């Protein structure tokens, strides 16, 4: 794909002239330093980032005279993100409104082109929250068609498999749960939401949080459209729209980009541990009917990861009329070896003698990846702030050993709705003396603390951190066996995580490169053909949405010290180090069109230089029932 570095490299003299002009007028010191360093240093770095979040438009002469006013609309509640949490909150709000015969305008904005297109999950769903939300989900045709019939857990070695009995009481036990295609469930939830009167707007991404003068959240603004790749306005440029609301719910999923800004602004993470993550890669396969065992759930740990790298696999046999299996691999993002490639570990795992026979003769029909939370209880931030609150995987309610977060996400959305509704419709008024434009809903956090979500997360809080010991995986399993299975998580201590995932990478010279086998094209595949299967695409002529705070750091630091780990951890091949066109050295090429919105780069970049922002709405993967 087209590299922005090439064109702007030639324009550098113009940038220098431009800089002289800006220097004499009011330029923010930050803008001056970054541009100045880039344009006038002896080591010239090709310009990569053109996004307006890094290069503000009010100082950019190409934007002079462009109409920047936005159309604004009012709603009662705006929900960012049309996933399980956001839709559960929307449905619950409208259910309450319809029951009490109140008018309530609930708008959901979602960056995916259709509801469910950016949803990716294993998944084994615990139907508790769904039953609370929509008790007659079966009659309404919810796509929960595959009750779990068999639960298999293994520790894999390179050639063999050690079976682990799945005793009742262990968190991974799945009796009573359903294997679902989460994208289809989310799509169904979207239909239910429309039925109760929620306004759904897929294809429109929330790009900016709006604030009142007093610093409270006023609402969101959707993305601008029609900005060219070099950051200049095109003929078809149009501003996004502002949606103002009394309260805004942020349900962007794991590591949301707006939530990242809110953590800083409202200091929501001051009393909790930093969130830790994993990356999950998933494929859907149509397999040979003889190998199909509907309702069978397989999990494994061990090979190909070493005992100090958290991760494992899943393989679920769906029962929806055709021999479909969902399989995937999860790698904890606190891994230390920069040569590790989660994608290639996944492809390698598929060749294991226990896994390969299921896939032989089959056909791969889908691929995708997404980051997921592993921080659990210790990493839950402050959840409410003036004008808004956080729901779902955004703050992070995933039960890590169970590898389920959908039921807790939905419950958090429902609790948010139940806490907001009485404040919106009279009875209690807000803290402000007269009716203020925004709501602060601390009751939501209180209700969450008193619910089964809190108890569940508290009980499993020590399982993931227990892997940080000399014996790694095995130490963790022993800890789980004693303290969770026998003592139900009631031990009085709470183990800590090791710090942020980005800080865990060791320099490349201290680590050995990993020899991955070549993909065989039948069971394992190369990266680019996998990315093509995700259906991902973005409008080509827009600024890359993977923005770098400093364009010179990738080559200087990421490549220099860590040998460019982003080339390996990105499941979509977005980052490539290619030789410079002139002279020696490398430059970073960002193939933004390949991005599948997994957020791993924002999480794992050792320099924390990459800032993922939302691209034009409607872009991204086109998952179908993932």
């Amino acid at each position, binding site marked *: 794909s087209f590299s922005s570095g090439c064109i702007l490299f030639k324009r550098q003299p113009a940038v220098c002239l431009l800089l002289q002009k800006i220097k004499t007028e009011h330029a923010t010191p930050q803008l001056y330093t970054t541009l100045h360093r880039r344009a006038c240093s002896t080591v010239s770095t090709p310009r990569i980032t053109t996004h307006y979040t890094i290069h503000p438009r009010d100082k950019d002469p190409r934007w002079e005279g462009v109409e920047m006013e936005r159309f604004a609309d009012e709603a009662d509640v705006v929900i960012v993100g049309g996933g399980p949490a956001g839709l559960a909150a929307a449905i619950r709000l409208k259910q309450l409104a319809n029951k009490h015969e109140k008018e309530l305008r609930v708008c959901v904005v979602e960056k995916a082109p259709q509801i469910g297109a950016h949803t990716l999950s294993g998944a084994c769903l615990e139907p508790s929250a769904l039953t609370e939300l929509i008790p007659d989900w079966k009659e309404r045709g919810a796509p929960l068609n595959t009750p779990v019939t068999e639960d298999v857990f293994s520790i894999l070695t390179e050639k063999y498999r050690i079976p682990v009995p799945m005793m009742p009481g262990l968190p991974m036990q799945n009796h009573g749960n359903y294997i679902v295609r989460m994208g289809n469930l989310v799509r169904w939830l979207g239909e239910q939401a429309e039925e109760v009167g929620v306004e759904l707007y897929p294809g429109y991404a929330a790009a900016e949080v709006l604030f009142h003068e007093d610093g409270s959240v006023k609402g969101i603004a959707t993305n601008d459209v029609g900005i060219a790749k070099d950051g200049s306005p095109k003929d*078809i440029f149009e501003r996004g729209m502002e949606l103002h609301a009394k309260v805004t719910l942020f349900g962007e999923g794991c590591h949301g980009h707006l939530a990242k800004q809110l953590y800083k602004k409202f200091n929501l993470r001051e009393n909790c541990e930093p969130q830790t993550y994993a990356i999950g890669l998933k494929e859907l396969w149509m397999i040979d009917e003889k190998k199909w065992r509907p309702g069978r759930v397989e999990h494994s740990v061990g090979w190909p990861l070493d005992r100090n790298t958290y991760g494992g696999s899943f393989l679920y046999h769906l029962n929806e009329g055709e021999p479909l299996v969902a399989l995937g691999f999860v790698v904890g993002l606190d891994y230390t070896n920069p040569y590790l490639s989660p994608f290639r570990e996944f492809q390698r795992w598929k060749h294991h003698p226990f896994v390969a026979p299921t896939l032989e003769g089959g056909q791969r029909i889908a691929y995708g990846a997404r980051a997921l939370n592993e921080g659990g209880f210790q990493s839950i931030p402050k959840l409410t702030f003036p004008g808004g609150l956080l729901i779902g995987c955004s703050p992070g309610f995933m039960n890590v050993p169970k590898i389920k977060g959908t039921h807790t996400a939905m419950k958090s959305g429902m609790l948010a709705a139940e806490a907001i509704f009485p404040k919106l419709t009279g009875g209690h008024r807000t803290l402000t003396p007269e009716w203020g434009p925004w709501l602060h809903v601390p009751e939501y956090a209180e209700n969450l603390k008193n619910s089964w979500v809190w108890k569940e997360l508290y009980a499993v809080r020590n399982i993931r951190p227990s892997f940080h010991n000399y014996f790694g995986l095995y130490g963790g399993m022993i800890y789980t066996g004693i303290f969770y299975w026998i003592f139900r998580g009631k031990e009085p201590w709470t183990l800590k995580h090791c710090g942020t995932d980005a800080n865990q990478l060791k320099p490349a010279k201290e680590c050995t490169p990993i020899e991955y086998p070549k993909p065989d094209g039948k069971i394992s595949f190369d990266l680019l053909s996998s990315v*093509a299967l995700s259906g991902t695409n973005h409008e080509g002529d827009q600024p890359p949405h993977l923005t770098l705070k400093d364009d010179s750091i990738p080559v200087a630091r990421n490549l220099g010290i860590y040998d460019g780990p982003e080339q390996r951890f990105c499941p979509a091949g977005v980052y490539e180090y290619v030789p410079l066109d002139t002279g020696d050295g490398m430059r970073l090429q960002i193939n933004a069109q390949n991005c599948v919105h997994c957020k791993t780069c924002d999480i794992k970049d050792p320099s924390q230089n990459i800032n993922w922002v939302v691209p034009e709405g409607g872009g991204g993967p086109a998952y179908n029932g993932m």
Partner: protein
Amino acid sequence: MSGRVLVGVKRVIDYAVKIRVKPDNTGVVTDGVKHSMNPFCEIAVEEAVKLKEKKLIKEVVAVSCGPQQSQETIRTALAMGADRGIHVDVSGKDYENLGPLQVSKILAALAKQEDAQLILLGKQAIDDDCNQTGQMTAALLDWPQGTFASEVSLEGDKINLVREIDGGLEHIKINTPAVITADLRLNTPRYATLPNIMDSLMNNETELHKPNHRTSLCVGLIPLFETVAPEDMQGGTDRSGAMLRHTVLQSGKPKRIILSCLCI
């Protein structure tokens, strides 16, 4: 002259999606797959809206034939600037058998009913690549046609058209009423922004029509025997056509798989 333009919009599988043949070889999987407006139809809508903004025509009516979901496509056209939408409800078996001949009969009937001055269509749909509807509609109405248009300008009651043809560009002048089909370089379609989508949702400017037996969807069906995916590329043989496709595939962008469709 009524100053009314009919624009045909078709709901097709999005161009970036990797399509998959159904296991029983009766077609491609469409269930749950991302759909969007045919890119050439977007260009046609944009041209119609541009003509309206230049005050050369008075009303833009977006038409789509298909199942319930076609209303989303019409809504996008309304959000881009169309005034009204007409959804011709065709679903189930009828929809599977819907082809250019049937659609052109519908469009011809609607053109007479709405007293249209101009019909703007995309040159072809990216799912069947037929490139027939515009031409058939013009023939049924006995109207002049300007296909593969890369420039359109109205001059009184005539249209100056630049057509993209194999040899280069052809300049023609045709009378109205006429049928024009849009090619890629006609314009760059605008975005359907959120305020306009909200408006089109609130105002619900779409009429529902059911095709009657006179339109006769059953006549002229092309029987589809089988749909198969093309063979995998074999490396090593030097066939220049195949080489070109291989090079394009290697750039990492997904390419549409061309299906072989056998018919009598």
